[in-house]
């Protein structure tokens, strides 16, 4: 067992290293930080640009292998280098990871819980009105791309605010800057900002989870152990919740770990539309501003998140399903 874990961890580290290196090499080849300086007005002297680029390890005239080694040496010491205008990459990204976490956490938790409940309810009343309704809704929601959904929410919120004459929903940013009316008002303000992005994240999740959970629950409902539980005299509701739902939760839980990991960098559209300055937004900004080191650092973070998520989903699977531990 220890050998297996060790081999698996080593493979994870290898995968992250290769993925990050590939991302760095690709970014260093394809992006052009020099154009950021040359596009400035007045144009800085060539020698200054050259010196600045070399100092930041971004000079495209230095050989790629040399730049890569300098960068890799820094990463090994925990230093992801500097952005094209000289700020530290690591500090900025750490702050942004916090923003993304605050944005994603509620949406993912809400989406998974609501989706699982909806799916289980639909399976219990198969072909009933709720089953049909939730299936139709899931199909509709899955057909709406996040881009469109987010903009639809913004349009709807602006319309509602106009109609009521009060700012019920706020559609830009994490909090109103310069608000100093005590803790209560601050929290309310944050909640107003959080509602729409959370809905835009949660709706899609609810649709996916409800489809998954419905199928899993249908498989379990006919199982012998559920019938046995009811034959022993358990009420139907107790049997369904304690025995059927608990067993059929396993795939949903492992899927939860996976989505959570990928959304830490993948909430790009939600962050951009609602103006949250998180990881996903930085990803777009760093590519637009030819910021090689930031692109590489975000890739490293994304790879790490996916790896940890898949590790977590395996561990959760083993915890929930004793058969995995024995086998």
């Amino acid at each position, binding site marked *: 067992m220890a050998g297996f874990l060790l081999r698996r961890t080593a493979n994870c580290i290898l995968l992250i290293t*290769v*993925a990050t290196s590939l*991302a760095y090499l*690709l970014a260093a080849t394809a992006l052009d930080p020099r154009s950021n300086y040359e596009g400035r007005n007045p144009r800085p002297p060539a020698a200054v640009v050259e010196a600045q680029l070399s100092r930041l390890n971004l000079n495209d005239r230095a050989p790629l292998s040399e730049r890569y080694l300098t960068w890799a040496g820094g990463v090994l010491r925990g230093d992801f280098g500097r952005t094209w205008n000289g700020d530290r990459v690591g500090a900025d990204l750490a702050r942004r990871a916090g923003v993304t976490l605050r944005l994603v956490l509620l949406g993912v938790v809400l989406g998974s819980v609501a989706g699982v409940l909806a799916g289980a309810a639909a399976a219990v009343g198969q072909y009933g009105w709720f089953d049909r309704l939730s299936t139709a809704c899931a199909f509709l929601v899955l*057909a709406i*791309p996040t881009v469109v959904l987010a903009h639809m929410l913004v349009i709807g919120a602006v319309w509602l605010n106009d109609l009521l004459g009060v700012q019920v929903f706020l559609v830009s940013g994490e909090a109103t800057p310069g608000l100093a009316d005590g803790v209560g008002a601050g929290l309310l303000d944050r909640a107003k900002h959080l509602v729409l992005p959370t809905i835009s994240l949660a709706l899609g999740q609810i649709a996916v989870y409800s489809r998954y959970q419905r199928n899993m629950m249908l498989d379990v409902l006919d199982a012998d152990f559920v019938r046995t539980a009811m034959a022993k005299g358990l009420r139907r509701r107790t049997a369904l919740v304690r025995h059927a739902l608990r067993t059929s939760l396993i795939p949903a839980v492992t899927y939860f770990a996976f989505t959570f990991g990928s959304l830490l960098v993948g909430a790009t559209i939600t962050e951009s539309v609602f103006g949250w300055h998180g990881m996903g937004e930085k*990803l777009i900004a760093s590519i637009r501003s030819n910021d090689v080191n930031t*692109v590489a650092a*975000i890739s490293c973070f994304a*790879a790490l998140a996916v790896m940890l998520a898949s590790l977590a989903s395996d561990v959760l699977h083993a915890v929930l399903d004793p058969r995995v531990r024995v086998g």
Partner: protein
Amino acid sequence: MAAPPREELAETMAGARHTRVPSRSRLVARRFLRTGQGRVGFALLASLFLLAFLGPRAAPWSATDLDFTAFLQPPSASHWFGTLQTGTDVFAVTMSGARRSLLVGLLVAVLSTAFAAVAGSFAGYFLGWTDRTLMWVTDLLLVLPAFLILAVMSPLFTAGRWLLFVAMLAAFLWMVTSKIVRGMTRSIREREYIQAARFMGVAPPTIIFRHVLPNLASLLVVDATLNVSAAILTETSLSYFGFGIQPPDVSLGGLIADGSATALYAPWTFWFAAGVLIVMILAVNLAGDALRDAFDPDAGRAG
């Protein structure tokens, strides 16, 4: 599976002489079209194709025309979906984008499913080092952030090289399916008919293409259908940020990005492109779901 009793077998054979036994594809097609989902999905897809490829011929404006007498005008008899700020006809440009999205979706789906089938079946059939290498590459691609890599590579997709974009998009969509194909191949390779073929000296690639992959056809067809919507969605979000299909080609994602800025006071710039996209994905998903049921031998409905 036990052989049917002799009389029954004779009866089936006698019956077969009178009525033609429907082929598998015909059976699947019939079961597909029997469900409401299948019919709606198929009808929506067919009408989208007709609209996207033939609609522009009937319309008075083309996607590159600019009408300097109508800037940001609501829908009218001359401009069916209204015009943009530049005087571009929204109907023409939306249909052009829909055409591009449909093509990208179909090509990416076919490419990525084909690749998944080959990689997965080779890994599952040969096992050993082939398996380990292929699965390691699969894991690596799963770990690489696809959105970021495609976005960084976007300058390469300019000047009409959208086929390169299609290939790159396909390269990031095949991994999960190939893992499923690998697992199924591992169980199929132990079957008697595969062993028989192997002992007769049939070359492994022939066995894979003639005996293994046809057995996975239902999975692959359904997967390809669902990949169409996945590809269209990824293309849309990349194009939304300007990293996908590059000008002069237009795509629905780019149109939605431009339209969202003017959506509040000129709704037609946003809703037509968004609506076409939603209908497209809905149609593909409905068709994929109906296809899965049609292929499923346990669905309980014969013929």
